[in-house]
């Protein structure tokens, strides 16, 4: 335990800002997960690996001499088709089966993706340089990498764009209708198969954006996908499906929680603290549900 953070108010500010900026990025990944979970009832274990793949797309551009920030436009386009292809190859065979089957299937996809990325890009840790510089606050005692600010802003822009798209566009309405009642939507002429493929594609595209942002803010490695899956799973559990503001708030909350856990418990417990919180929330939710539950006898 380390209480240094309570003695230095600037550390508190630093931790809060770091946490919130990272949290917004997590929220974007979580929103993708919530979307396809809500529409297709699939928990995608490969979510984090899609993120990392998106990051590698931006990194490849960076190697080719293009500024990695363009990755936030190119990566989602490529990832949309990756997601679409994944749906056609694997997910459509498990979409109306029970949750366990889909978890197994996406777990398999996760392993395949990790090994493929390792094979193509190598096991070395890579980063893309944005050269965005740093913003100094409070007489240099709080530093914010501009890349983090950039990533939070881009995440927000995409999230808002997506909400508008879901409300206004024909496909968006079809997706929402399918989420509410797939059978009724089908009867009324919605091509649910197409909706599912598009949803999975949109989710992958969101992961692509997040990945591109991670390539310029953090580091990439074929095997760091899982922590992103766990984080988004957690945010969705707390926020519920199909509620974007809640996803954003719970994302920022998780970011804050992680940063503070890092300062107080130590960096080694950062991910551990997330898992602990996950267990706690699941138990708490069950407890609350059990109070409401009514039995038919």
């Amino acid at each position: 335990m380390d209480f240094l953070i309570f003695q230095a108010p600037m550390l508190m500010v630093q931790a809060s800002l770091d946490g919130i900026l990272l949290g917004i990025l997590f929220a974007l990944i979580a929103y993708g997960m919530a979307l396809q979970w809500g529409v297709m009832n699939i928990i995608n274990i490969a979510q984090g690996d899609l993120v990392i793949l998106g990051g590698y797309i931006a990194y490849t551009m960076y190697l080719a001499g293009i500024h990695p920030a363009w990755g936030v436009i190119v990566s989602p386009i490529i990832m949309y088709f990756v997601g679409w292809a994944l749906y056609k190859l694997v997910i459509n065979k498990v979409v109306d089966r029970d949750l366990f089957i889909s978890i197994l299937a996406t777990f398999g996809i996760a392993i395949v993706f990790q090994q493929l990325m390792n094979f193509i890009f190598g096991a070395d840790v890579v980063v893309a340089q944005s050269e965005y510089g740093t913003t100094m606050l409070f007489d240099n005692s709080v530093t914010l990498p501009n890349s983090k600010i950039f990533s939070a802003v881009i995440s927000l822009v995409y999230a808002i764009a997506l909400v508008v798209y879901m409300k206004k566009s024909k496909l968006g309405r079809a997706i929402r209708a399918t989420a509410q009642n797939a059978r009724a939507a089908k009867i009324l002429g919605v091509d649910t198969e197409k909706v599912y493929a598009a949803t999975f594609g949109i989710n992958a595209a969101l992961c692509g954006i997040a990945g591109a942002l991670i390539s310029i803010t953090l580091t990439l490695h074929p095997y760091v996908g899982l922590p992103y899956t766990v984080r988004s799973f957690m945010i969705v559990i707390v926020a519920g499906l199909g509620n974007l503001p809640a996803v954003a708030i719970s994302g920022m909350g998780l970011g804050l929680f992680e940063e503070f856990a890092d300062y107080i418990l130590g960096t080694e417990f950062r991910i551990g603290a997330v898992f602990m919180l996950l267990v706690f929330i699941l138990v708490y939710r069950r407890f609350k549900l059990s109070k409401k539950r009514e039995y038919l006898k």
Partner: protein
Amino acid sequence: MNKIAKLFITFISAIAMALVSFSSSFAKVEGEYIVLGSAISLTGKYSSNGVHTQNGYNLAVDRINSMGGVKVGGKSYKFEIIYYDDESNPKRAAQLAERLIKQDGVHYMLGPYSSGLTKAIAPVTEKYKIPMVEANGASRSLFTKGYKYLFAVLSPANQYLEVAIDLAVEKNGGKPVKIAQAFEQDAFSQDVRLGILDAAKRTGSKIIIDDKLPKELNDMAATLAKVKATKPDVLVVSGHTKGALTAIRQIAEMKVDVPMLAMTHCDAAKLSKQHGKKAEYALCASQWHKNLSYKDKFFGTGKKYDKDFKKEFGYAPPYQSAESSAALLVFKDAFERANSFDRDKVRDALKATEMQTFYGNIKFGPGGQNTAKPMILFQVRCKGDTCENKVVAPTKWASDKFFHPIPPWSERG
């Protein structure tokens, strides 16, 4: 089942049985070949260093074979290595070691990559009394278990950064320093940490930040913010390549000013490829550097090794390759002194090893670690956009002066 299927199955099983009997006859020495076995990480998270290790082994095998091989009992033998991919997984590595020994009949082993995998294999080789020369497991705990058949050509992990603390104290006018440290939670990095604790105790220095980093490390912002607030004299980071890369990225972005930054697994080529000049002034612990003046008759000097390796594999050899090549030289020397293929005689010969290779002097201590070779420290220095490793410690090998303190970010371009 129809006839064809039955025939097919009989055929397959016949082939399988033939293979099994063939491979078990594939014992220690087959014709003119001495067969060594190694489980190595060709896929998985250690695959890049696994490949460096394998390239180092292969280069040495080719070199020794082409220069007359190994002379035992008046006859000349060649080396041959059976490799299996351990997928960077300790359980798999232990299984493969069993397989190499029991099925392939290998009597001499070369180590895998990383302390963790060496730890998984050592109990197996020990059980079957198979001498293993390893070049990539530096964890101190490997040498305190009383293993009798394990020999490591590299310096143990606790020595990696001890020199850095001595250097910091020296620069501080002999007075104790304030140390901030962050180590990944794996066997290797934790041993490096123990070395720092020893050095701190010896010099009376104080450790003011002692963070442990998770395996999935990609964000050190919290540790670095603390460093910024507490202003230590030296920051020590060890977390394999990802630790080094994450640290450099975030130190630059957060404009953290420390007078001295010491790390493991950093290498100018790798760091500057990813980070350009931001990596400058970092101090890196290394087992080997091409400019050291050690020599042997197979590879000549370090510089010559560097050149030959580049010609063969198209990239400059990292120390992981150099130490792997040295492992083969040790085996050759031991076979010739034992003048026998008896495992215990070879083991005794290994134990009595005292030789110089291009990689450094080799002499094994009671636990099997190499006690004859010091660690070196180099500093990343850049001219324009090209960065190089310049040896700065120990003084005997230093080619450049140690640049201290690191200029603050406000003065760096």
